[in-house]
């Protein structure tokens, strides 16, 4: 079985290759995302900062009762599984069964201060424990070395943890993220566009970039590095704006995708893996 990384708002986990993001909601403080295998939901992740009066035991029991309430004839037990998942955090693993099987975890991470609920569903009850353990062992809910990894569909990049996601657009083949710094002044926008080879058949990268950003470009430079065509530019976002922004766009022939990053020092802040390295 092939595995791939999924990362959203500081939460990372490895899942089977055909499990892909199906919904996202919220922000770093409170939110949720789910993954599906094309037919049904397989993973749900939910996170929030707990209230000041917070008891892990009460939370686990409340969570267990919620699972029992949700399904008919459901049996839900707290299980002990040999795993290094709970290193440095408190929580529990729950195993439940009715017409389908599932594992749920509730954990509190002292480092990031969030309570994270993870639910993994197995409608066909095959290799459920093995798959769940692999997911669990890869699960982390905070940034490592000050950087958060974002991984959805075929886009993987890391960003400093002090950058806050302010918006994202997840259209098929056109993904855009916008981040803002702590002071709320600087913004960085990253876009990944699929089918780059088809798009660039009709127009060069520079023309495509100009059309996409729609701003006024004052400086531009084209370069080729590691078989990737790069287009560097400085541009004015709004007609009457006094500030200029930097931008880079490049085409990766391996992933057949176009990447576009705009903002100040954008290239230094975001580390983008434009194709899979095996």
């Amino acid at each position, binding site marked *: 079985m092939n595995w791939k990384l999924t990362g959203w708002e500081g939460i990372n986990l490895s899942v089977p290759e*055909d499990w*892909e*993001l*199906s919904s996202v909601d919220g922000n770093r403080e409170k939110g949720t995302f789910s993954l599906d295998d*094309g*037919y049904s939901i397989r993973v749900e992740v939910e996170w929030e900062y707990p209230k000041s009066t917070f008891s892990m035991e009460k939370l686990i029991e409340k969570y267990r009762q919620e699972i029992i309430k949700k399904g008919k004839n459901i049996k839900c037990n707290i299980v002990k599984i040999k795993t290094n998942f709970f290193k440095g955090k408190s929580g529990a693993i729950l195993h439940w069964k009715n017409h389908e099987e599932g594992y749920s975890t509730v954990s509190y991470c002292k480092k990031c201060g969030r309570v994270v609920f993870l639910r993994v569903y197995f409608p066909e009850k095959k290799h459920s424990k093995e798959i769940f353990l692999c997911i669990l062992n890869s699960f982390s809910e905070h940034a490592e070395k000050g950087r958060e990894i974002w991984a959805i*569909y*075929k886009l993987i990049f890391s960003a400093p943890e002090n950058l806050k996601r302010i918006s994202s657009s997840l259209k*098929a*083949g056109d993904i855009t993220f916008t981040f803002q710094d702590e002071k709320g002044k600087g913004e960085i926008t990253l876009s990944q566009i*699929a*089918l780059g*080879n*088809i798009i660039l*058949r009709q127009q060069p990268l520079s023309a495509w970039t100009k059309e996409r950003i729609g701003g006024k470009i004052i400086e531009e430079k084209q370069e080729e590095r590691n078989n990737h065509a790069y287009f560097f530019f400085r541009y004015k976002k709004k007609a009457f704006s006094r500030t200029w922004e930097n931008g880079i766009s490049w085409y990766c022939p*391996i*992933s*057949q*995708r176009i990447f576009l990053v705009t903002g100040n020092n954008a290239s230094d802040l975001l580390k983008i893996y434009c194709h899979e390295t095996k």
Partner: protein
Amino acid sequence: MKKLPIDRKTLLNAKPLRNTLITWEDNGEELNLHVPMKKSKPSRLWRFLFGFPEQKNIHLDLLGSEVWKMCNGKNSVQDIVKSIQERYNLSRKEAEVSTLEYLRKLMSKHLIGLNITGRKI
């Protein structure tokens, strides 16, 4: 747009079939479809009065042409999605969403139909 009254699994196993009245010419990698217009008396009168053409021409781009060629009644929607996914290095969801949307558009223009285990819709 009106939603298809079938579930996802049935839709993926369905086999798209081209409208047999449509002809096309191959311009290398891209296709030009020639769609005949209605032959009812009022539409013939309209064409005679206002000089409307006998057929409508639709140009398909590279990707659209590839999908069109695969709509031969033998490939299922799943096969088409898989082929597009592999050829253009897309994720499952990216390939599926865009291919299904494109097939829906072709269906809404009556250019293709879906063969669901012998039943045509």
